[in-house]
């Protein structure tokens, strides 16, 4: 056999896998730094269990944000939608003598309505989603505060309920909500990549004019994305309330920047038309580990912000390098 016949195949990574690979590589790099500086903490299974408790909340919120971002919009109103749907869940629980399903349904309906409202402002009135949702975030937070009257609502009755065990119980070292979060990620991932709706989300954010000319109802697609945010807010707030058996009206406040960071660190660009669900899951894991990691390696809690900032900027640089546009 002559040497000419042997084909040397160069291993080429398809472009669409690059963001996921980038996010994964970045995550591993960050973890090795953490493990190097605090091996006792980061090689301990308890650390992972702690992270997995809250990780699914960031994954579920991030999923909705990936859809919105890829559709060419942004949603900054989800933290207060989260608080509002949580409040509706809590109030309905009290009013129905702890009927979980009615309370969850009420919270879902409110979440869907919130999404419809934002979608209406953005698509029918043509407002910028950045400014609209910034305003809506204040508005919903205000409504929540007025309705809640500064109360912290506790539901000790839930501690032993089978529903709580199913949603947030622990299966060995794995909290149940992690499995729920990953299941939702899988379902939405299939819809994102393989369902007509997901394909149209990509088109809406890539070239809405082209989509309209080819008969894609771009406005409707965007409204559905905002509704998805509402639905995910409702699921996230419900899980969050079940975890602690407590509702407090500021529960959404810590989510805004970490969730957006998870989307972008995961390799979904802010420009629309492109995105990755697998990347988001890795991005969310990265972000949640920073929160715990910065403190675990012995740094002051004040350093969390600095760590966040560094990780986001570095990951953007990494994604840029992967897409071959490092030198402009």
């Amino acid at each position, binding site marked *: 056999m002559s040497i000419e016949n042997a084909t040397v195949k160069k291993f080429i990574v398809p472009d669409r896998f690059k963001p996921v690979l980038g996010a994964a590589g970045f995550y591993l790099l960050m973890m090795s730094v953490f493990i190097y500086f605090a091996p006792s903490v980061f090689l301990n299974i308890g650390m992972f269990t702690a992270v997995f408790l809250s990780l699914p909340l960031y994954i579920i919120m991030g999923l909705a944000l990936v859809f919105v971002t890829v559709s060419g919009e942004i949603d900054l109103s989800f933290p207060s939608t989260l608080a509002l749907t949580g409040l509706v869940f809590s109030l309905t629980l009290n009013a129905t003598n702890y009927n979980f399903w009615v309370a969850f349904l009420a919270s879902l309906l409110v979440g869907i309505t919130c999404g419809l409202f934002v979608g209406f402002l953005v698509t029918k009135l043509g407002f910028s989603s950045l400014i609209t949702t910034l305003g809506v975030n204040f508005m919903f937070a205000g409504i929540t505060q007025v309705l809640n009257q500064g109360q912290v609502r506790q539901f000790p009755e839930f501690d032993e309920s089978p529903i709580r065990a199913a949603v947030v119980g622990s299966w060995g070292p794995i909290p149940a909500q992690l499995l729920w979060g990953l299941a939702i990620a899988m379902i939405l991932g299939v819809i994102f990549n393989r*369902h007509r709706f997901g*394909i149209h989300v990509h088109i809406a954010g890539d070239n809405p004019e082209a989509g*309209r000319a080819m008969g894609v109802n771009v406005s409707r697609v965007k409204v559905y994305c905002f509704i998805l945010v509402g639905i995910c807010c409702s699921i996230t707030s419900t899980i969050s309330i079940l975890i602690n058996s407590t509702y407090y009206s500021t529960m959404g406040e810590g989510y805004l920047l970490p969730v957006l960071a998870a989307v972008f660190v995961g390799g979904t660009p802010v420009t629309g038309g492109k995105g990755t669900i697998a990347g988001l899951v890795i991005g969310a894991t990265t972000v949640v580990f920073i929160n715990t990691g910065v403190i675990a390696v012995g740094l002051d809690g004040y350093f969390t912000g600095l760590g966040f900032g560094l990780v986001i900027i570095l990951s953007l640089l990494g994604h840029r390098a992967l897409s071959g546009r490092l030198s402009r």
Partner: protein
Amino acid sequence: MERKPLIELVGVEKTFGRVQALTNINLKLYEGEIVSLVGDNGAGKTTLTKIISGTEKADSGAKIILRGEEQKNWGAAKARKLGIETVHQNRALSEQQSIYANVFMGRELTNRFGFVKRKQQIAETEALMRKIGYTSKVWTPNSPVLKLSGGERQGVAISRAILFDSSLVMLDEPTTAMALSEQAEVIEFIHDLKRQGRSVIFISHNPWDAHAVADRFVILDRGRLVFDGPKGDMKADEFIMMLREIARKGTI
């Protein structure tokens, strides 16, 4: 025997704010004919094709009659479903998406739950790319459109128009920014469409192209239809003289 028109426009008007883009357009289009739609910049050619393709809505009072039936709630999705395909001037492509996603944009092949039949779409796109003579072997149906050249992108837009069994294909300036060899291919392609029995509306800035392919000329000037007649034995230079005359006087 009187021929039945494929599509008939009655009293189509379009205003953008205070600008009257189209004034009382009445037009019949028959099966298997190539109509060259000509006119100066701003004459309303693109607006007219956008109204036929459902991308723009005509002002109220206009009638669109397809195969003898007046159409209500005319829109892009409906027009495509009823067999009207358009190659838009700006090509209407989503650049970050794959070639096959663009070919099937808005008319994805799905199962009854709405999930896309990806393999079938890729296979059909591949066959289509070979059919319209993609010379470059580098591209697969999975390549994103942003890597393609201008002519190749036009190829994607054109293959989208012939993929489905359309009865009317509208091409708005399809040869703009194309190499001469590519332009010749597009002209040949238009003749192919006619041989397959489809109707074509062809818009071009190049009067020789417009003359060469046409069975019939429709000339717009400042939003009005000023000439509608068969080519007959009109020579190219007579046609061009007529266009000049219209541009100068606004009528014949």
